């Protein structure tokens, strides 16, 4: 099978269309614009709708409309635009409307810069809009995953009736790698709750408004139960060389790639290092961390930010193991060499591992 060399941003759109996406409403922004451009080229050819909105605020509310009409739909933006979309994402989460938001991150706060950064983790993972809601967040680290996780994002969006965020740093959006796609295109049936302007859907109502306090509480409990279900069924992470790892490196997106290279080099140098890469940032792969506690002596979180993922890692470990942090921001990338030096220094500081017997004694 011939793979194709393609940018991550282009792969997102092709995968989306194969997964039945027929609506794209967006606003240009670096480094996400190729997604809009590719959508503008292909959606009209497949009987879909592409529209460049007057703002990100309008774009996300157009998704609210398209999704209400039962059409699989998506948008893409970067930090400043995603900030403007928070209103609509909150409304869609409240109204249980599925959609996919590709968030190709850049530097912040404010206008920041357009280099690759991971400072929007909290915005994506902790719900940047108002109210008791969350959105599933998928974090691809390769062009192939940009394609695969986009398809998964549409499935999850429909399954749990929620916006799903594809959180990719600018590198993953901009780089080219070989990719292959699902062989067949699909278009799902129009969901029964949609409002399509027909006799069958006449009684349907899309709203996020629940005036009674008991009504609203029941509603947000229902959303919460949905997230719990997603946590049980959808949590994903990649573990590599963690089996006997004493030092577990943790990072997502492009950082996951760097950590893979570091892990390989560390292993070659005789250090017991492994990699745990969260693929779903919400739901968070807490169990993967807890499983590793028995072996691992320290977790090292590496991020292109001043430290956001690291908070979730600490919560997942709940004090069971120390957590070290290495972060770069502003568009700087923690390089392979920088992380390797950090790991070597850490390994040098660590006491020799306890023997099995000592370990057993320690647990008595």
């Amino acid at each position, binding site marked *: 099978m011939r793979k194709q060399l393609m940018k991550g941003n282009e792969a997102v759109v*092709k995968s989306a269309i194969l997964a039945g996406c027929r609506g794209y409403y967006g606003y240009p922004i670096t480094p996400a614009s190729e997604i809009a451009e590719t959508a503008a080229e292909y959606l009209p050819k497949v009987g879909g709708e592409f529209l460049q909105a007057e703002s990100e*605020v309008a774009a996300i509310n157009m998704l609210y409309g398209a999704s209400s009409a039962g059409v699989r739909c998506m948008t893409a933006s970067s930090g400043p635009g995603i900030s403007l979309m928070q209103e609509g994402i909150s409304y869609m989460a409240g109204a249980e409307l599925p959609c996919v938001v590709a968030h190709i991150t850049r530097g912040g706060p404010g206008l920041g810069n357009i280099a690759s950064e991971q400072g929007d983790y909290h915005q994506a993972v902790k719900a940047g809009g108002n109210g008791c809601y969350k959105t599933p967040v998928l974090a691809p680290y390769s062009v192939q995953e940009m394609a695969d996780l986009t398809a998964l994002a549409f499935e999850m969006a429909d399954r749990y009736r929620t916006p799903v965020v594809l959180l990719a740093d600018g590198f993953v959006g901009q780089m080219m790698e070989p990719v292959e796609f699902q062989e067949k295109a699909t278009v799902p049936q129009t969901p029964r709750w949609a409002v399509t302007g*027909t006799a069958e859907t006449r009684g349907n109502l899309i709203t996020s408004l629940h005036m009674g306090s008991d009504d609203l509480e029941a509603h947000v409990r229902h959303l919460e139960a949905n997230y719990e279900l997603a946590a049980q069924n959808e949590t994903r992470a990649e573990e590599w060389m963690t089996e006997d790892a004493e030092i577990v490196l943790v990072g997502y997106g492009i950082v996951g790639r760097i950590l893979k290279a570091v892990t390989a080099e560390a292993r070659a140098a005789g250090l017991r290092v492994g990699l745990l890469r969260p693929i779903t940032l919400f739901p968070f792969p807490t169990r993967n961390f807890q499983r590793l506690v028995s072996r691992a002596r320290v977790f090292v979180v590496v991020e292109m930010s001043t430290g956001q993922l690291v908070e979730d890692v600490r919560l997942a470990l709940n004090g069971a193991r120390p957590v070290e942090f290495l972060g770069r921001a502003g568009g700087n990338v923690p390089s392979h060499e920088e992380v390797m030096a950090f790991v070597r220094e850490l390994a040098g500081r660590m006491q020799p591992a306890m023997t099995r017997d000592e370990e057993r004694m320690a647990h008595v």
Partner: protein
Amino acid sequence: MSSGLIAEYEVVQGKAKSFYDTYERKDELQHQTHYCPGCGHGTIHKMLARAIDELGIQDRTILVSPVGCSVFAYYYFDVGNVQAAHGRAPAVATALKRSRRDSIVVSYQGDGDLSAIGSAEILHAANRGENITVIFVNNAIYSMTGGQFAPTTLLGQKSTTTPLGRSAQHEGYPLHVSELLATLEAPVYIERVALGDNKQIAQAAKAIKRAMENQVKGLGFSLIEVLSPCPTVWKMQPVQAQQWVHDVMEKTFPLGVFKDRTKEAHVWPARDAAPPLETIPEILGVAHEELPEGKAEMRAQVKDVDLHVRVAGFGGQGVLLLGEVLAEAGLDAGLEVSWLPSYGPEMRSGTSNCHVRLSKEPIDSPLVTVPNVLVAMNEPSLRKFDASVKPGGWVIYNGDAFPEDCVREDVHVLALPFTQVANELGDTRAANMVMLGALLEMTGALPQESVDAALKRLVKNPRFVELDERALARGRELYRNSAVR
């Protein structure tokens, strides 16, 4: 009164079919709306419901309700209902209509919603000529939130946030939405009506029906602005409030048709039929292809490589393309590859660089911080990356002489005036391919057929393919003849 007598009457004007029989908003209030006595919304709802009935479009209608007093419109209208965020109804309506072209979409909005927070959405929906109907209820105040100033508040009118009355100096003048939107080319029908007396009410009903009819005919964007009483917030009796619409509001907001292009408007085109699903991978250019004959055998013979290449130069020198051809050729040869560009402001400030990796093994990091080959197309790029080159690696430099202070004992250097060579070949722009030729010859990494295949895929103009092929060959030759081998 006997029942026999009632049977003699024929009901000519009952409750519209497009209303629900009961309003299930609150258990104790199934037969009354949440609107205050004397509020204009009830009257306007009735007009809209009647128009839907008369046009026979109840099943097709989708009502988008706003944030404001009419937020609960979905309790009354027995149609498809979507409740939108504050001011965003025109954006929501836009995508509803574009997604379901046979539906009839109504955006029902108040003046705070439409003329303040939603001013961008209404302007652009109108400017695109969306085939929707907008009912714009103007009562010159924010009512739902308790009487704050709106863009439509009259000069001198008191509100809870303009306690001394609106002043032109401080809040500007009342916003004339109908007049403003009528300056746009796309809208088909814009009229301002009022609920000031029975005659005006009759005219308002006609206008609303017309605006709905325009959409049924597919003519495009229609907006009806309705001057409407709000006795509660205005602190007036219902009759007095109606009188105020008639006597005061109308002076600021004159009634009339501001735009009527219904005669010359083109009917919105139907969407092209969607292609069959099985053709979609092909349309996207991602249909699965088998490998051409002999390719597997060729790939098996490709030697073990692990290239970490950094290419850098001025924008316009073809830095990114050089990297792309290398990566594409590597893919053709069955290698694992990655290509990562510098992007953004760097693109515009004149320098450009990219990271390329080729390997038999899966590629961990696509970032090349320690290259084993540096292709420096100019001196600044050499100075930026020279020190990072891995000991034992290569530097291919475009220049007559290698700068003395960049010389390292532990790397190989091929320094030649590649731009001049390209000029001799007939096009300065081919310097990148001459350098790539040298790189390919030096590393022996890829079969020529893969490089040819990559060029054909990436360079669309056959004239340039021919030039690039000559440039690559010249580059190979230069390396073979160089002393550094």
